[in-house]
């Protein structure tokens, strides 16, 4: 069992943070890498990119939004409980170096994944501007943490309750117009990454995105996580999860993410029935 040592509820309890004891993974993990978690004997394998790693405490932190049966089960785990299985670190780490000016764009729980990458970019000597987007100010996460590792943080909300009233792409375009940007890192919902990439393509700014397709093993064995990058098939688990944002077939990725919509709904319904 992989014990939970800290649990926090964010964004009105819709997003959960778990700090988990996993010393071997913590020792090796680098920004951008993910783990696969299994909640119990009948659980499925769920990949999540790590939001934080504490090598001294031997822990890793995941932050997830409650969206389906598995994350609902995850959310029932309290401090002292644990996951049956956690395996990792998986995937290639983020390529971090001094690029010059880097804009880090995070949406939803993507901001949690973006945080260690942002810190890495900052520590490598980059000028870092971060843009965080969410529906309303109540769903904003990691604002303080991002501020600590960025030269500047800009907020966008869909309803204007904080920061810019609008999308992260509008904020990003303003920056791209005003100054030279050497790299954009965008992590969040697929449509956000798609529109950020379309925009940066216009400005010819290199863009890196982190993909989270459906996968089973996370080691290249099933091919379920295959994504089309520049017309070629790649496995997100071993070739990624980060890719050149300008090369990703986002529509294909969206389609594949919806492959089990019917089954997922059925699974959740059965869970509710059992509870009732």
């Amino acid at each position, binding site marked *: 069992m992989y014990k939970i040592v800290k649990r926090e509820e964010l964004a009105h309890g819709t997003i959960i943070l778990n700090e988990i004891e996993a010393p071997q993974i913590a020792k090796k993990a680098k920004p951008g890498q993910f783990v696969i978690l299994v909640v119990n004997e*009948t659980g499925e394998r769920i990949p999540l990119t790590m939001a934080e790693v504490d090598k001294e405490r031997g822990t890793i932190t995941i932050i997830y939004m409650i969206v389906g*049966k*598995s994350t609902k*089960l995850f959310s029932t785990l309290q401090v002292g409980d644990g996951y049956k*299985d956690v395996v990792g670190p998986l995937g290639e780490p983020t390529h971090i170096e001094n690029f010059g000016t880097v804009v880090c764009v995070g949406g939803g729980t993507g901001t949690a994944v973006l945080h260690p990458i942002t810190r890495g970019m900052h520590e490598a000597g980059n000028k870092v501007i971060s843009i965080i987007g969410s529906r309303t100010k109540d769903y904003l996460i990691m604002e303080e943490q991002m501020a600590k590792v960025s030269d500047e943080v800009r907020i966008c909300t869909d309803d204007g309750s904080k920061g810019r009233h609008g999308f992260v792409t509008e904020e990003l375009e303003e920056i791209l117009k005003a100054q030279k940007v050497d790299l954009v890192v965008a992590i969040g919902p697929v449509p956000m990454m798609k529109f950020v990439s379309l925009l940066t393509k216009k400005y010819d700014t290199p863009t890196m995105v982190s993909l989270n397709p459906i996968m089973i093993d996370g080691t290249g064995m099933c091919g379920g996580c295959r994504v089309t990058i520049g017309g070629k*098939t790649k496995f997100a688990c071993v070739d990624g999860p980060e890719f050149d944002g300008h090369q990703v077939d986002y529509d294909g990725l969206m389609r*594949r993410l*919806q492959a089990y919509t019917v089954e997922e709904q059925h699974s959740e319904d059965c869970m509710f029935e059992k509870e009732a």
Partner: protein
Amino acid sequence: MTFEIEAKEMTKKERRQIPKQQMPEQDAHIRNKDFSEVTLGYSLRDAQYEAARCIQCKDPACVKGCPVGIDIPGFLEMIVNEDRAGAIHRVWESTALPAVCGRVCPQEIQCEEVCVVGLKKGKEPVGIGNLEMYIADWARKNEVVNDIKIAPSTGKKIAVVGSGPAGITVAGDLAIKGHEVTIYEAFHKAGGVLLYGIPEFRLAKDIVDYEIEQLKALGVKIVCNTVVGRTVDVDELIEEYGYNAVFIGVGAGLPNFLNIKGEDLNGVFSANEYLTRANLMKAFDFPNYDTPIIPGKNVAILGAGNVAMDSARTAVRLGAKKVTIVYRRTREQSPSRDIEIHHADEEGVEFKFLTSPLEFIGDASGKLVGINCEKMVLGEPDEGGRSRPIATGEHEYIDCDLAIIAIGTSANPLLTKTTKNLELNQWGNIEADKKTGKTTKKGVWAGGDITLGQATVILAMGMGRDSANSIDAYLKGEEEW
């Protein structure tokens, strides 16, 4: 057929008259609806009569035909004499996995192919595989414990990477020789391909679990959730963890794709993914188990090897109305065992030979609806005597909502690319000495599919046996690196 006298009382001449004892099987139309095992197993009397068909050759070809050299005439005669404890111990001397091998070994190209009884026209070889399965199942059901003596501790530590057939064999052998063995497995459960690849109806998973328990009883430690190459690398195992030797048996896990248009459509799977969902993750029991699988009404399987048959028969059991094997060569050229094709055929799987896929076709929502194929003909035999399929230009459209690609697997580079001084061949397989399993990296051995490419359970076990002997000799200072 019943006999008036017991097998053990028969004369040699009488024994030769015994017809082949057929393996009882579940009826095809009942078994194709659930995942329970197809073969039901011999009764004691079946087993005795079948074993009595062995003519006890002085220089038995079958033993040479077995990659791990089981004393076949020896254990068969013990079955005839109802000395079942003796028989299972005789088998255990050479294999740690008899219940598995009895079921999944291609005996028809190994021990049974060279069996003298079967060489005569119109005669069938002794059912060695069936008898191995019988004796192993008897031992399991009767909780017979391997009373093999474990050698005194040598104080040497060995890491085995991968818990498939090669790793299990190495671990068992070395534990018996007194070494401290730890197996590292990437998945959350041990067993490798026996667990994720081979379906329940061909190899019940409680058998694999039992074999793993036997291994633990020998003192082997099993650590799951460890991806060597990511969680820990080979050099760390040696330098930091203090292992004196490392055996790599990670298999050939990377699925090959066809690289044709539409392969990313929903409904197109690698056999690895489809079978892993169904077997390891138990998606056949969804939603009691959380992992889903697309059931598919009309299923096309691309490829015609054993894995293709496993996929086809899994699809039948998951409720598909129609399952078709699509293969660009002929039935005779299929790499599958005859018994697998036969079983698939019985269960209602259809076959379309000399048909090659060109493009997957999807609907507006990105779901698979069919495959454009091209008809092939067999050309003149090439230098190797094998006829190549030649495209005719004639197209055929196959309706399907699920397609499973089963055209083989390649070496997974995850471990090899993070390990220094480990030489690979042009296909990415580890270069290992054929006799000893030694790699180009000191203190590191390898065996099974990661060295052979895609092969069989028993070949992996044979290589595991050779590596275990070499590791033992090396650690005892009897063999130089």
